[in-house]
C-alpha cells in the first residue's frame, strides 16, 4: 500500500479558530527522538504519536512491514514503532534536495511510506510546493485567512486591519515556493493605514505573497511565546484516505517579552520589522537556525603545541588541543564541580568545517576578581560550562549561550593554573550579526578551547562540537571507540555529516565509528 506522510501547520486566528498555514511533504518533526528505543518508545511518544491507531491500521489492512522512503533518514519514529510492535521495517534513503524518489514495488503486506518530496506527486508538486495552490484550494473555507498573490490577481485581503495592540505585526510576506534565500523570508510588517497596505501589494513579487498576521491574545501565547501546532497524517491508497497520527505544539525560541534584544530600528521606513524583533512573533531563519553552534572566523582555537589558529585558517585534519573530562557532562545535566578539574588534555583532529553567514549572538560581559572584566560575543547555541546562582558551589552544567543569564558564573579554563576559574556574568544581550562563521567537528574527543580575549593568552572558553547528537547512542561517557554500530539516522537532527547533525557531529555517515 502506497502512502505519503504530510504535515500541516496551524496558528490561531483572532477569533480563536485554527488556520492551516501550509501543507508539507518531506516533512520533519521538531521532536528530539535521538534516544528513542523499543524500551522507551511508549513513554517517549505517546503524548504526540497515536501509535495504537497505526498498529490497528496495520492489523486491519493485513500489513506486516513498513518501508519508508525518506530524505536523510527522518523515520526514527516509524523504525522504532516497527521494533516495538514487531513489524518488519526497511528504510530507503534519498538525498537532501532530491526531487524524485526511487520506484518501490507495491505489495499487499507492506505500507510504503514516503517522507520525501516527489515532483511527480500531485500533493507535493501543487499543494506542498506552491502556497498559491494551497491557499487557492482552501480560500472558501472558514479556516482560510486573507492573502494576496500576484498570480491571477488572487487577493482576499479586502480590508486593512491595524496591529492588534500597536506592537505585534499585522501583515507578513512569505515565499510562494521553496528555494528562496533562507534569511529573506518571512518579512514582518506593522502597517498603519490602507495606503501602506496597497503599496505593499503593488510591490509584491510573483514568487511571494502577503498574509495577515494571525494572533489570538489568549490562545497564541504559551509562557509568553508564540507557537504553532503541527499535525502529521498518512495519506494512503487510491482514494487518498487519511490517518491522522502525530500532533504537537512547537514553542517559539524567542519570547515576546524578551527585553534583551538589540537592533537598530524596530521598524524601518517601509514599516518592515527588524528580523530579531519579528522573531518574537514569527519563527525566522535566525531564531530557528541561530541555535547552531558556531564560531567567528577570527576566533582562535588552541593547538597541542600551545599555538593558536583562527577558525578561518583551520584545516581539515589539523590537530588541535582537546580536553576530556573524566566525568563528562550532558547538556543541562548538573555535575559535581570538583570533577571539572579532573580532565585529560589530548589531541583531536578537525573532521569537518562548515561555514555559514549570520546568526543570533549573545553578547556577554563577565568579571573575575583577578583577571578583570571581559566582553565577548558567541553563538546562542554555543555551549558553556555554567553555574547558576541557585546551584550549589559544587554543581555545574553545560548550557547554551541563549540560556545564560545575568548572575550566572561562566567557567573558563586558565592555562596558567591548568584549572577552570569562575567569571560572574554582569551583562547579557542578543543581537543578529552578519558575520562569517564556522562550525567544526573534531574527533575523537569533542571538546576544544577557544581563546577568550587576545589580551590574555591563558584564558580559554571550553566549547565542543556543534552536534551532541550522540549518533549511535555514543556519549562522552562511553568513549567513541566503544560505540556499538551507530547508524547515521539515529541522531534526529540536521546534518550533512551524520545526515542530521547540523554539520558537526562526532560521527560521520561515510565513516561511522
Amino acid at each position, binding site marked *: 500500500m502506497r502512502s505519503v506522510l*504530510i504535515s*500541516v501547520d*496551524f496558528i490561531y486566528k483572532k477569533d480563536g*479558530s*485554527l488556520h*492551516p498555514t501550509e*501543507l508539507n511533504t518531506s516533512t520533519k518533526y*521538531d*521532536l*528530539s527522538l535521538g534516544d528513542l528505543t523499543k524500551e522507551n518508545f511508549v513513554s517517549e511518544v505517546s*503524548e*504526540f504519536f497515536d501509535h495504537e491507531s497505526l498498529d490497528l491500521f496495520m492489523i486491519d489492512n493485513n500489513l506486516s512491514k513498513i518501508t519508508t522512503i525518506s530524505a536523510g533518514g527522518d523515520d526514527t519514529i516509524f523504525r522504532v514503532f516497527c521494533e516495538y510492535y514487531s513489524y518488519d521495517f526497511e528504510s530507503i534513503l534519498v538525498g537532501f534536495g532530491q526531487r524524485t524518489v526511487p520506484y518501490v514495488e507495491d505489495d499487499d503486506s507492506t505500507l510504503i511510506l514516503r517522507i520525501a518530496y516527489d515532483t511527480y506527486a*500531485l*500533493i507535493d508538486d501543487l*499543494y506542498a510546493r506552491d502556497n498559491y495552490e494551497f491557499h487557492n*484550494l*482552501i480560500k472558501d*473555507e472558514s*479556516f482560510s485567512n486573507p492573502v494576496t498573490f500576484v498570480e491571477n490577481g488572487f487577493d482576499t485581503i479586502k480590508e486593512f486591519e491595524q496591529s492588534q495592540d500597536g506592537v505585534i505585526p499585522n501583515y507578513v510576506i512569505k515565499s510562494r515556493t521553496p528555494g528562496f534565500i533562507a534569511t529573506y523570508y518571512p518579512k514582518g510588517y506593522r502597517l498603519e493605514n490602507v495606503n501602506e497596505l496597497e503599496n505593499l501589494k503593488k510591490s509584491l513579487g510573483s514568487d511571494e505573497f502577503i498574509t495577515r498576521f494571525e494572533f489570538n491574545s489568549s490562545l497564541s501565547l*504559551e*509562557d*509568553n*511565546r508564540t*507557537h504553532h*501546532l503541527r*499535525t502529521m*497524517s498518512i*495519506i494512503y491508497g487510491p*482514494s*487518498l484516505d*487519511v490517518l*491522522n497520527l502525530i*500532533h*504537537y*505544539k*512547537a*514553542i*517559539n*525560541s*524567542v*519570547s515576546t*517579552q*524578551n*527585553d*534583551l534584544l538589540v537592533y537598530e530600528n524596530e521598524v524601518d521606513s517601509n514599516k518592515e520589522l527588524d528580523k530579531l524583533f519579528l522573531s518574537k512573533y514569527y*519563527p525566522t531563519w535566525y*531564531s*530557528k537556525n*541561530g*541555535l547552531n553552534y558556531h564560531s567567528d572566523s577570527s576566533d582562535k582555537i588552541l593547538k597541542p603545541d600551545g599555538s593558536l589558529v583562527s577558525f578561518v585558517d583551520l584545516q581539515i585534519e589539523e590537530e588541535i588541543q582537546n580536553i576530556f573530562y573524566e566525568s563528562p557532562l550532558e547538556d543541562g545535566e548538573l555535575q559535581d564541580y570538583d570533577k571539572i578539574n579532573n580532565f585529560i588534555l589530548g589531541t583531536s583532529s578537525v573532521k569537518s568545517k562548515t561555514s555559514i553567514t549570520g546568526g*543570533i549572538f*549573545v553578547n556577554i560581559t563577565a568579571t573575575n576578581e583577578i583577571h578583570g572584566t571581559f566582553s565577548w560575543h558567541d553563538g*546562542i*547555541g554555543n555551549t558553556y560550562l555554567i553555574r547558576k546562582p541557585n546551584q550549589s558551589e559544587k554543581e555545574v552544567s553545560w548550557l*547554551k549561550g*541563549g*540560556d545564560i*543569564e545575568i548572575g550566572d558564573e561562566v567557567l573558563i579554563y586558565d592555562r596558567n593554573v591548568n584549572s577552570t576559574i569562575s567569571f560572574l556574568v554582569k551583562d*547579557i544581550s*542578543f543581537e543578529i550579526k552578519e558575520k562569517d562563521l564556522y562550525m567544526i567537528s573534531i574527533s575523537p574527543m569533542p571538546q576544544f578551547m577557544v581563546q577568550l580575549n587576545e589580551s590574555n593568552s591563558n584564558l580559554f572558553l571550553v566549547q565542543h562540537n556543534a552536534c551532541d547528537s550522540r549518533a549511535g547512542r555514543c556519549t562522552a561517557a562511553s568513549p567513541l571507540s566503544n560505540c556499538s554500530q551507530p547508524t547515521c539516522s539515529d541522531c534526529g537532527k540536521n546534518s550533512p555529516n551524520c545526515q542530521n547533525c547540523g554539520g558537526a557531529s562526532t560521527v560521520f555517515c561515510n565513516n561511522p565509528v
Partner: protein
Amino acid sequence: MESNNKITKLKSRKVSPNQKQEMNSIVNKIVELIREKHL
C-alpha cells in the same frame, strides 16, 4: 515557566484533545478538497 530573556531551542508540547480534533477535522477537509478537485 521558561525565563522570558532566554533564547532556547524550540520546544514541543502536548496538544489538548480539542486541538487535536480541530486539527484533524481541518486536515480531513483539506484532503477532501484535493479529492474533489483531482479524483
